[in-house]
């Protein structure tokens, strides 16, 4: 299933400048694993063990995955996954 992943500007050095990419996966976790396959450097930037670093936010269609099922949240063909820094605002 093709899932579009949007890459924030701060991570584009690790994606050869790509602002988005398309990967396969049935859950957010699988999508991220496929993303790390494609761009190896991303793993050390945003992953923390099996989870995510504490200042990384991941959204599906604008909804924070922590309001869904986290990395186990299912994704469907055409869904858009957005990675953003958590340190903005307020």
């Amino acid at each position: 299933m093709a899932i579009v992943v949007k890459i924030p500007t701060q991570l584009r050095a690790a994606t050869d400048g790509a602002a988005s990419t398309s990967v396969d996966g049935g859950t957010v976790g699988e999508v991220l694993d496929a993303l790390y396959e494609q761009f190896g450097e991303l793993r050390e930037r945003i992953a923390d063990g099996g989870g995510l670093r504490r200042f990384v936010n991941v959204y599906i269609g604008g909804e924070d995955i922590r309001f869904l099922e986290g990395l186990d949240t299912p994704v469907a063909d055409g869904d858009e996954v957005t990675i953003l820094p958590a340190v903005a605002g307020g």
Partner: protein
Amino acid sequence: MPPESLTCKECKTIYPLDASYVCERCFGPLEVAYAPREGLDPAELRRQIQAGPHSIWRYRDFLPLEGPPPRDTLPAGWTPLLRADRLAARLGLREVWIKNDAANPTHSFKDRVVAVALARAKELGFQTIACASTGNLANAVAAHAAAAGLESYVFIPADLEEQKILATGVYGTTIIAVKGNYDDVNRLCTEVSGDRPWAFTNINMRPYYAEGSKTIAYEIAEQLGWQVPDRLVVPIGSGSLFTKIARGFEEWIDVGLVDGTVPTMNGAQATGCAPVATAFAQGHDVCRPVKPDTIAKSIAIGNPADGPYALELARRTGGGIDAVTDDEIRAGIRLLAETTGIFTETAGGATTAALAKLAERGDIDADERVVAIITGEGLKTLDVVRGTFDTVEIEPSFDAFEASVTAASTAHPVAA
């Protein structure tokens, strides 16, 4: 003591003083680091500060500008610190002070942070400033942009209080009302900021913006005669204000401008949006995001960026973070108004209610000097006090007046 770099708060990686806010290595927040301040003469520094303008720029040596402060700026800061003996008596406390930041140009503490962010944005050559706001920040960005002749865009939740929208639009800004809550607005702006050459005060300019909050600590210390209070009560939205006030005291203790230790830090959240208070109560060191549902919209941030640091600070100083209900917030607004003559918005109601809660629990020692930070103006959230009191409506005749208003409430002072 010029700013030296941006430094990642987590992994300490160093970056130039650009419009950036995230560590590319670990995604942690960037902070302004200054040249070392050792060896300064505190007496001389005190004299320089006292000779400075009656605004945040009297503390320019502690703010992140490379050049002198701009002249075309609204004079943010230098707000009154008032001793609130009647409030203290009502709460059974000895010494309570109110830092009234409603007395800023756009009536909230956001003028401090915006003044700094905008000044730095101009140094970096930006023509346009923007923000993601719960209202007060929108007011401040629109006004300061107007004063400086910059273009501005403010993004707000579409359901914001009408007073805050009106008081923003009047400055000739572009208001973008987003159909969602503040966290949706913030997410959108985080995306937009990667794409537009704009200075988003609380996103790509956040390291500079946040520094502005330290000036509240500097003012309190100076207004108390170069002393540090024992305890502070501060509202928590993102946690940036809370943590930067403590940083301000820390810096002044380090350079010897004041003696003592960082005050006990108490935070106030609304029960309807209390991710930091909840994490504090449960002993967690990160906050689980929530969907806000409270009248205290100015602090209704469900995904607080500085939550982990606010938790660490409250624990380190022996303080805490309390959540208060919407009814307690209304009562807090009323209590402050009735005992001090200061009419605050909902965030100030939350702060006053949290102070009352601390007093009631006996958490505040008899000899403590407590300062409550009142961050904004009651006229911006008028709806929440509607229906909380009665008016006496009468025909325009003396008889009607006599019949309606009891003698006790009209007793003449000379007869007493």
